[in-house]
């Protein structure tokens, strides 16, 4: 390998990082003063929102990290965990520096937020207008949404994406897709103005990540050996653990989106749990009927699909509607994963499109069907409550997010592909990304009881491997 090129390659990230520090030091110090005298905030709501923020953080790592990490083969588990963990770091900084202001800065033409909050300038301990929680709390709650959305996409290209390409992609995607879409829907942009309902992120988080995942899977191509010669998931207990943590964190995701701790949060909490439960059961029963056995991976996948689908609806629908939304989610996503994917032949490694793209789409539309002003006067009535216009609105929201995510991801991947190859080499893929990209192996298990392999040579007296409670070793009677 060319040593000079290697050197240059290594210096690049350092340079980038130093540039960032430079930019930082420009912002530093002066911005804070304005927020110095905190105005009254509501402590119950603040407590709630901060806890929910932490819960959504937990969804990304270890929640999603484990959910995904358990599904890949053993030689790629660390690289898969790294996608989520690194997204937490990377977008955590991107959001503070420019992501928040692009999403929630003063509206510019319905399209994007202004730069007023660059570097969290003016985001302080007092509430912004009308809110009962510190502006910082709101901004950090939103940070966790940006983070998990990026992390979700990584399931599409697990086991083959180059790490440098992932970093570049994540930064560009967050900036040019997530931030605008969040602005459109929640930050005062055109979808919000139109009255599109998305309580906690059906379009912003799930459609956007799911559709981008589909595009990424198509652009980056299938894993070697897909579909005939793949390894089964290497650690399903990790996946179940991850699914349970996602469910747990989703209470923060959906019920936290009420931004206050009251009846609306309790409603969102209730429908979230109920839709997840209904969807988990439904997927299991579909498998039972079609394949003869209900699997735990299916049940967990169903639960996640239900959580995805209820997300946009969670502040607007009745408890019993949530059962139907959950059941519908499993039907739609089951078909996506088990019929659509094999038919089209794309390799969306961990079914991001099947579960989040389709589940999010179903949820956004279901919101247009089941939403009711009787549940939440701040919402709208859906088709089943006599208002077909809302369904149209939802469809517009869906189309807009499909379009932005689909086209945007394609462009971004092409751009990234010019700078660096998107994919590892064949040889690296066979080796496994953990060793090839990170120089680490996930496990170093010994054979059961194989306690002392590879340890230093020991003196004569230290030989019996299990000295304590060992049956006395007397010489054989010969």
């Amino acid at each position, binding site marked *: 390998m060319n040593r000079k090129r290697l050197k240059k390659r290594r210096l690049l990230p350092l340079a980038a990082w130093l540039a960032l520090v430079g930019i930082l030091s420009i912002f530093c110090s002066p911005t804070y003063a304005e927020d110095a005298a905190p105005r009254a905030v509501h402590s119950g709501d603040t407590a709630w929102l901060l806890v929910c923020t932490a819960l959504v953080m937990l969804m990304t790592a270890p929640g999603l990290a484990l959910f995904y990490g358990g599904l890949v083969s053993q030689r790629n588990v660390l690289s898969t965990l790294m996608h989520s963990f690194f997204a937490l770091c990377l977008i955590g900084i991107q959001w503070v520096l420019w992501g928040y202001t692009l999403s929630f800065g003063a509206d510019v033409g319905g399209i994007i937020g202004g730069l007023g909050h660059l570097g969290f300038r003016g985001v302080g301990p007092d509430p912004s207008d009308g809110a009962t929680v510190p502006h910082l709390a709101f901004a950090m709650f939103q940070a966790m949404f940006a983070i998990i959305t990026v992390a979700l996409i990584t399931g599409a290209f697990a086991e083959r994406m180059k790490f440098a390409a992932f970093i570049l992609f994540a930064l560009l995607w967050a900036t040019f897709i997530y931030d605008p879409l969040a602005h459109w829907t929640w930050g005062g942009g055109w979808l919000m103005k139109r009255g599109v309902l998305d309580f906690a992120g059906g379009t912003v988080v799930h459609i956007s990540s799911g559709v981008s995942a589909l595009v990424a899977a198509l652009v980056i191509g299938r894993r070697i050996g897909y579909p005939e010669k793949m390894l089964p998931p290497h650690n399903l207990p990790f996946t179940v653990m991850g699914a349970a943590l996602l469910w747990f964190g989703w209470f923060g995701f959906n019920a936290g989106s009420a931004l206050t701790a009251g009846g609306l949060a309790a409603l969102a909490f209730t429908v979230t749990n109920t839709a997840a439960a209904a969807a988990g059961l439904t997927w299991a029963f579909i498998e039972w009927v079609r394949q003869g056995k209900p699997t735990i991976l299916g049940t967990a996948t169903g639960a996640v699909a239900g959580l995805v689908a209820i997300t946009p609806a969670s502040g607007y629908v009745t408890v019993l509607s949530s059962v139907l939304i959950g059941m519908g989610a499993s039907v739609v996503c089951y078909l996506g994963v088990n019929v659509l994917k094999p038919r089209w032949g794309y390799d969306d490694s961990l079914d991001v499109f099947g579960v989040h793209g389709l589940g999010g789409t179903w949820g956004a539309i279901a919101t247009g069907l089941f939403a009711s002003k009787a549940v939440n006067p701040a919402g709208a009535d859906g088709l089943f409550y006599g208002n077909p216009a809302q369904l149209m609105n939802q469809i517009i929201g869906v189309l807009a997010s499909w379009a932005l995510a689909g086209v945007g991801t394609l462009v971004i991947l092409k751009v990234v592909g010019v700078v660096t190859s998107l994919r590892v080499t064949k040889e690296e893929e066979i080796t496994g990304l953990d060793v090839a990209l990170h120089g680490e192996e996930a496990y170093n298990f010994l*054979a059961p*009881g194989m306690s002392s*392999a590879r340890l*230093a040579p020991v003196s004569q007296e*230290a*030989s*019996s*491997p299990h000295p304590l409670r060992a*049956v006395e*070793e007397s010489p054989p009677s010969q």
Partner: protein
Amino acid sequence: MRKIESIIRPHLLEAVKTALQEIGVIGMTITEVKGFGRQKGHTETYRGAEYKVEFLPKIKIEVVLPEEMVDLAIDAILKTARTGKFGDGKIFVTPVEEVIRIRTGERGEAAL
């Protein structure tokens, strides 16, 4: 040619490997196995239930060699794998009729 199959204590693998390399062995294959013999196992407890661990972890080293190196190899193993306590393991010597190197198709001692 001969195959030397040796069962040893796991933590002595490094030492045995080095000794074999020193007498000129280039390749070997190892397997994690479990042994049963004069060395006794130990007892584990899980919520009061006792489990007897009878099969103890061992490493099996397999080396195929030209006949003339067999004694040297046995000495190398004896020197490094012995602790003098039960469970040090065994060396088995068996005949090998043919060896082929897959990479080149070479046969016989050249393939080692």
